[in-house]
């Protein structure tokens, strides 16, 4: 109830003193931080003002009629119903305005489509419901998942400042460089949008779209998926960190080292406890969105794993479905999404959590061999 009272107060205050709460009562698009986004902003403002001027003129005449030509005021109707000159004029004038508007719009569009001469290339892949970023020239990549805790979404915890706009691994790009994005998707259509860059591109399975940006100010920029992609469409934000060149170089080096270390982990001898611990974490990020944290799923689209035939039956079938997915259903092929370690950990976890006590484990080495046989 107090929350409601506070909100009502905020509403009233906001309406009466707009300057007090500018942050929450933003009315307009923001210019953003790239050349493209500034050009878009200028186009937006130009067309907005054109509309305002036309609106004032047309509604001005209308309101004047409403006030001055009322029957109750004794107005006698005129009888004109045609005027060729006027009708031709108000066909031609809007046309000319449109031509004038189309010129800068065309120039901006041509510029937006020119993704040549990029200095960094990043492949962006949409998944239900996360983004994968692959630095194709540097040979590493990672997934970017929503990091807002479920308790905040379910109103059991106070919502943080960047509620729903925060991720575990943001995309990192260098400032001042032309970065090209190759956008695609793994399952359904998504759309990758960073408002501050003026970049929005649909991620379409089986096709690769190109777009680009050049960010001049370092900072963290936030956006969201903008194409309905299923139940968690509202929960797959885009977060991009633009950093100075040196910081970017350090980031790339660190990521490459981490990728190398990950490959070494595959060869390590894992114990059941280690796999279970790692499996729980991997399960939360990769599987829980559909199969739920307690393995109960959301049938029929997302079957339960707790006590399921797959998770308690034949191990080979279990590995196959996790690595290769199941065509015609929402079950994705995780073989390329997760490392061998995470695959082994997740499968081991699923076979031993929530009362699925098979006692069986699979090692990263076995997964590695399984993938190589295919």
């Amino acid at each position: 109830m107090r929350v409601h009272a506070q909100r009502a107060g905020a509403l009233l205050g906001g309406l009466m003193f707009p300057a007090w709460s500018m942050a929450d009562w933003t009315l307009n698009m923001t210019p953003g931080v790239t050349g493209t986004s500034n050009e878009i902003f200028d186009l937006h403002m130009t067309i907005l003002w054109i509309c305002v001027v036309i609106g004032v003129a047309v509604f001005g005449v209308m309101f004047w009629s409403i006030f001055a030509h009322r029957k109750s005021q004794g107005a006698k109707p005129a009888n004109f119903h045609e005027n060729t000159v006027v009708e031709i004029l108000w066909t031609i004038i809007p046309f000319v305005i449109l031509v004038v508007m189309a010129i800068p719009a065309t120039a901006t569009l041509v510029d937006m489509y020119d993704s040549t001469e990029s200095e960094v290339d990043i492949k962006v892949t949409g998944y239900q419901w996360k983004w994968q970023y692959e630095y194709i020239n540097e040979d590493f990549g990672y997934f970017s998942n929503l990091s807002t805790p479920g308790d905040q979404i379910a109103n059991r915890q106070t919502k943080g400042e960047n509620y729903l706009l925060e991720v575990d691994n943001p995309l990192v790009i260098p400032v001042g460089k032309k970065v090209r994005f190759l956008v695609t998707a793994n399952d359904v259509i998504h759309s990758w949008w960073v408002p501050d860059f003026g970049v929005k591109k649909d991620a379409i399975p089986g096709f690769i779209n190109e777009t680009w940006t050049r960010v001049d100010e370092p900072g963290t920029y936030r956006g969201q998926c903008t194409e309905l992609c299923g139940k968690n469409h509202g929960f797959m934000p885009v977060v991009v960190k633009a950093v100075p060149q040196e910081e970017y170089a350090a980031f790339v080096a660190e990521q490459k080292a981490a990728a190398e270390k990950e490959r070494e982990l595959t060869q390590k001898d894992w114990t059941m406890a280690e796999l279970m611990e790692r499996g729980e974490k991997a399960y939360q990020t990769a599987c829980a969105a559909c199969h739920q944290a307690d393995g109960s799923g959301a049938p029929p689209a997302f079957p339960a794993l707790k006590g399921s035939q797959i998770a308690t039956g034949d191990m080979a079938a279990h590995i196959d479905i996790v690595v290769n997915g199941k065509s015609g259903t929402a079950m994705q092929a995780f073989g390329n999404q997760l490392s061998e370690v995470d695959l082994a950990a997740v499968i081991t976890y699923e076979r031993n959590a929530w009362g699925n006590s098979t006692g069986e484990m699979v090692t990263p080495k076995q997964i590695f061999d399984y993938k190589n046989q295919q």
Partner: protein
Amino acid sequence: MSAVADTHAQDHHHGPAKGFSRWLLTTNHKDIGTMYLIFSFTMFLLGGTMAMVIRAELFQPGLQIVQPEFFNQMTTMHGLIMVFGAVMPAFVGLANWMIPLMIGAPDMALPRMNNWSFWLLPCAFLILVSTLFMEGGAPNFGWTFYAPLSTTYGPPSTTFFIFAVHIMGISSIMGAINVIATILNLRAPGMTLMKMPLFVWTWLITAFLLIAVMPVLAGVVTMMLMDINFGTSFFDASGGGDPVLFQHVFWFFGHPEVYIMILPAFGAVSHIIPAFSRKPLFGYASMVYAVGAIALLSFVVWAHHMFTVGIPITGQLFFMYATMLIAVPTGVKVFNWVATMFRGSLSFEAPMLFAVAFVILFTIGGFSGLMLAIAPADFQYHDTYFVVAHFHYVLVPGAIFGIFASAYFWLPKWTGHMYDETLAKTHFWLSFVGMNLAFFPMHFLGLAGMPRRIPDYALQFADFNMVSSIGAFMFGATQLLFLLIVVKCIKGGKKASAKPWDGAEGLEWTVPSPAPYHTFATPPEVK
């Protein structure tokens, strides 16, 4: 001919049959029109209830009332029910009632088909609504049902949804054929095409649009059906198909479809504004040509819904220019309405209030449409609440206010009674305020970066969402008042004369109020 008329006379078959069979078996255009209007209002309340669920969930950030799965079913069903169940049948209802009366015809040209095309609709919507109770839930992929979300990843009920769309399509096509056959064959002697009332003109053009695009919709859902059940890969890239093909085919239907939902309202408003301005419509001929131009252009602008899918730049430019062009004929219509009011003798009964609000608010929707046409700017607007604001501005104060204006304008003719003017004005002002409160803030939300079709949102969007929800509840509750007004008007009220509006023109005002069960058995002469 005379033999048929004689048997008829001997049966004393002048009035309607009694009981339910009157409605089930009727071939009378007035009965069928009434049934369409009742059906449409029922669907309006059902779709509106779903909108209330959506706005209740969006009242505050966080998930409170429904889960995302169900939220997506609500947005999908709300859209489908409002487009196919509320707006389109309402216009068909108006067409059934008014076209024969306006052109001096005794009935629609194909009365039995008329009956069938109505009764298909409740069947289609029974199937569609029943999906809510199926395992896996109702369709949850948005009213635009983009593949592969609606095919490979759709719920099991998708096949029922496809069947429902097929039935609705058949119903619409038959309705359109009937309208064309009626207008082209049954006009009173002397009523040349360029003397036809504008509502008849706009419906004639709408009917051609329907016949052109409903088969395209049927085609796209059939391809979905094949992909889901018969192993084809029209929209599945892994089988050599193309998900973007779906969008091209869908929007080739979808863009003319949005004009199908607005052109008849243009026509109705072109009768109401002159009637209450007591002055002839300004620029009749240019109004007709403008509607024709809008209808033709509607076939070459579909990809403006797809500016972000990555079509080549030449395509992008073509669709941007073509879309901007639509502003020209639309502008002509608005200028004509304003010129009709200019130096008239205006009074503001409920039909006129709704019609004036229609012109103003539809124009605002047109302005945001023009902004969306600018392809580079569309990259920022696309799939945000700015788009939601835009199309609700053209559909709610456009299509729906147009329908309310028509209903109040012709209710005296239908029922023989005047409606309660005070209540009707209350209905107008509450709808007007509620609607603007609900939809205007959505422009701000979109520009601030809120995507559409999300059940939960970041904190900076909280305030305007709350305002919007309050407006939506207000608008929704107000519509029950309309039900009350209509029921009251049917039951009684001041007797309406044959022509209750002193400025109104047209054949429909030459028959008594209420219009007798059979009218224009002998065609009137039009000078």
